[in-house]
C-alpha cells in the first residue's frame, strides 16, 4: 500500500479525477437508458396519430371539397402517404431541430403555440417546486429533529391527509377560500411577469400551491424518515465530538446525506405535478399547455397533440436527468446513500 502511494505521482488530483469519472459514467449510463425511453415514448405518442381513424386530410378540406383526388393530393403534401416509421423518423428529426409541424386547422406552427403557452406552465411549475421543497423540507426536518413530539405527529397526520387530495380538488378549495370567500387573490386568468411582478405572483400563487401540496407532503414524509435514520448514524456523533455547531451538522452533514431519497421523490412526482398543472389550468382558467392539449384533442388536431406530448415527455426525462446528476454530486461514495 505504501509503495502504491509513493509511485502515484499524480498526487492529489487522482482521487478526484477518478471519482469524477465514476460519476460521469453513472450519469452517462442513466442517459443511455433515458434516450431509448424518450424515443420509445415519442414513438408511442406518434403512433396515436396513426391510430386515429379520422382522415386529417378530409377534415382539413372539409366535407364538400374532400374528393378522393383532393384528399390524395393533400395526403401527399402532408406526407401522410408514407409508411408509419418513415413518417415517425421525419417527424422526429424535424422535432429535434425545433420544428414540430403545423396545426391542421390554424396553420400556426406547433412550436409557436407551445412556446406561447410554455411560460405559463413553467412559472407555475417552478414556483410549485420551490414551494414544495421549502414547505416539505422544513416540515420533514422539524418533524425529524423533534421526533416523537407533537410537531412530528401533526406533520405526519397532515401529510397523510394531504396526500389523498388531488391537485384539482386542492385547487378548488384554494379558489373557494382565497378568491371567493376572502377575495384576496384572483380566481382565474394569467398575467405574465411583463405585466408587473406583483400581479404575476398574485395569479400564479394559488395554482402553484395547488400543485405543490401533494409533492410537499411526499417530500416531508420521506425526508423525515431519512433524516431520522441519518441522525442515528455514528458520523453525526463524530461531528459532534469535533465541536461543530449543531446547525452546521444538521445542514452540512445530516441533511446533505438524507436528502437523496427525498430528491428522488421529487423526480418521481414530477409527472404528478404535470397532471396537477393541467388541473390548475382548468380550475384557474390559465392558458397553458394542458388547455392547448384539450382543445386540440377535441378538434383532433393531431400535430399539436403530438407536439405537446413530445415536449412534456422531454421535460420529464430532463427532470429525471437533473435529479440523477444531483444525486451523483451529493453522494460521492456508492455506499454513501444512507436510507
Amino acid at each position, binding site marked *: *500500500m*505504501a509503495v502504491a*502511494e*509513493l509511485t*502515484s505521482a*499524480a*498526487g*492529489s*488530483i*487522482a*482521487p*478526484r479525477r477518478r*471519482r469524477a469519472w465514476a460519476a460521469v459514467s453513472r450519469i452517462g449510463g442513466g442517459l443511455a437508458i433515458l434516450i431509448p425511453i424518450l424515443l420509445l415514448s415519442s414513438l408511442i405518442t406518434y403512433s396515436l396519430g396513426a391510430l386515429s381513424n379520422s382522415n386529417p386530410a378530409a377534415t382539413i378540406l372539409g366535407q364538400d371539397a374532400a374528393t378522393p383526388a383532393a384528399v390524395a393530393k393533400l395526403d401527399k403534401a402532408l406526407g401522410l402517404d408514407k409508411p408509419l416509421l418513415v413518417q415517425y423518423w421525419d417527424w422526429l428529426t424535424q422535432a429535434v431541430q425545433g420544428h414540430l409541424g403545423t396545426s391542421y386547422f390554424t396553420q400556426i406552427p406547433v412550436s409557436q403555440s407551445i412556446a406561447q403557452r410554455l411560460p405559463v406552465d413553467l412559472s407555475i411549475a417552478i414556483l410549485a417546486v420551490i414551494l414544495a421543497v421549502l414547505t416539505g423540507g422544513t416540515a420533514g426536518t422539524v418533524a425529524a429533529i423533534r421526533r416523537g413530539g407533537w410537531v412530528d405527529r401533526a406533520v405526519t397526520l397532515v401529510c397523510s391527509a394531504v396526500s389523498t387530495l388531488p391537485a384539482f380538488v386542492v385547487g378548488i378549495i384554494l379558489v373557494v377560500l382565497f378568491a371567493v370567500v376572502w377575495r384576496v387573490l384572483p380566481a382565474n386568468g394569467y398575467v405574465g411577469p411583463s405585466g408587473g411582478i406583483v400581479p404575476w405572483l398574485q395569479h400564479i400563487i394559488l395554482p402553484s400551491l395547488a400543485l405543490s401540496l401533494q409533492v410537499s407532503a411526499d417530500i416531508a414524509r420521506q425526508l423525515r424518515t431519512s433524516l431520522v435514520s441519518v441522525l442515528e*448514524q*455514528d*458520523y453525526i*456523533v*463524530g*461531528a*459532534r*465530538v*469535533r*465541536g*461543530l*455547531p*449543531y446547525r*452546521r451538522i444538521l445542514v*452540512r*452533514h445530516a441533511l*446533505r*446525506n438524507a436528502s437523496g431519497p427525498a430528491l428522488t421523490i421529487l423526480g418521481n412526482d414530477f409527472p404528478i405535478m404535470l397532471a396537477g398543472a393541467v388541473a390548475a389550468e382548468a380550475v384557474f382558467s390559465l392558458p397553458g399547455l394542458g388547455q392547448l392539449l384539450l382543445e386540440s384533442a377535441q378538434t383532433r388536431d393531431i400535430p399539436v397533440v403530438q407536439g405537446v406530448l413530445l415536449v412534456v415527455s422531454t421535460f420529464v426525462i430532463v427532470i429525471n436527468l437533473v435529479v440523477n446528476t444531483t444525486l451523483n454530486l*451529493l*453522494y*460521492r*461514495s456508492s*455506499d*454513501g446513500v*444512507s436510507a
Partner: protein
Amino acid sequence: MAGNPPPDEVLGIEDLHVTVHDGAATAIRGVSLSVRTGEIVGLVGESGSGKTLTCRAALGVIPASCAISQGTISFGRQDVTDLSRRGWERLHGTGMGAVFQDPASYLNPNLTVGSQLAEVLRVKQRMPRRQAHRTSIELFTAVGLHGPERVFHQIPAELSGGMLQRVMIAIAISCGPRLLIADEATTALDVTIQAEIIELLRDLRDQRGLAVLFVSHDLAVIRELCDRVVVFYAGEVVESGSVEEIIERPSHPYTQALLRVASVGDYGRRELQVIPGQPPRVGAEITGCRFAARCPAAIAACRSGPVDLTMLAHGHDARCVRASDPELAAITAAAPADGLVAPDAELAVR
C-alpha cells in the same frame, strides 16, 4: 518528583452513576478516576463493563435513554456534569478530542477526509481556507500519513482502517486539546498498524503533553502504552494503579484472571484460558461483590455487603475484601481455567 508541583488534572470523574433504559437500570456505579496532563490512562474490561459508557459520559455524548444520576465529571477545573449543549460545543475539539473503534463510520462517507479536517479548522479556529488546507496537510503528515496531499482528497471508503484512524487522530488533535479519549482505537486494526498507532499516541503525549484516556480490552496493548490502568467490571472500578503495579502485583481476582487469560505478566501460558461464568446483567442489583459469583476466592464476607476500594500502595486501589490477603494470588493462580461458558472471545489469549 520532589519540588515539582503535581501536573494538573485534566479529567476528573468522581463517584459517577449512570442509569440506562430511561432509568430502569444503573449501568455504572460509583466510578472514580482521573487523568493528568501528559498521562496515558488505560481503561480495561469486558464488553458491557461500563468503560465505553464512562467515556461517552466524559465526552458528553451519552445516548438519550441514559442519564447521569449521581456524581461529577470535571474537565480541568470546570464541572461539566450538567454542561449545556453550547458548552459542550465549545469544549469539544479545543478541550478534548475523541477517536473510536471504527473510524470509517465516524466520518461522513460523502465528503473527503481532508475537507472534514479543514472544516474543523475553519469553524473552530476561524482559519481561512488556504491556511486550513495547509494545516490539514501538516497534521496528516504529523500523524504519519504518506502522501497527505493525495489523502486529503479521498473519501473514507478509499482509505484503509489504519489510515482512517490516523485521520481521526489528526482531526481529534487539530485544535490542540488537552485530552484525547480513545475508545478501542486499535481494536479493529491489525497488529503492525496497531503498533504504529500506539507509537503515534506516545509521541503525541511526549511532544504535546497530551493526556490520553485509552480504552481497550487488550491488556497487552495497555501494558505497552499506558502509565496507569483502571480495571472495570460490571459497571464498577475494581482495581486501579500504575501499570507496573497492576501487571506485577494485581490484587483483585478479576485482574489476576484477566492477566492469566491474556498471558501477560507472570501468568504467561500457552493454552486457551477462560474465566468461568458470565458477568452479571447490566444494571443487575447484587449485594456484595459483583465478581463473587465467578471468583475462586470468594468468602462469606464478599457477599454480605457493599465492598469499598481498599488502598494498597500509593495510587493502587482494589475493590476486594481479601485484597491484602497474601494467599489470594495463590488461590486464583490455582483456579481451574476451563469454565463451562467462555466469556467474550476477546479475552482469549492472543
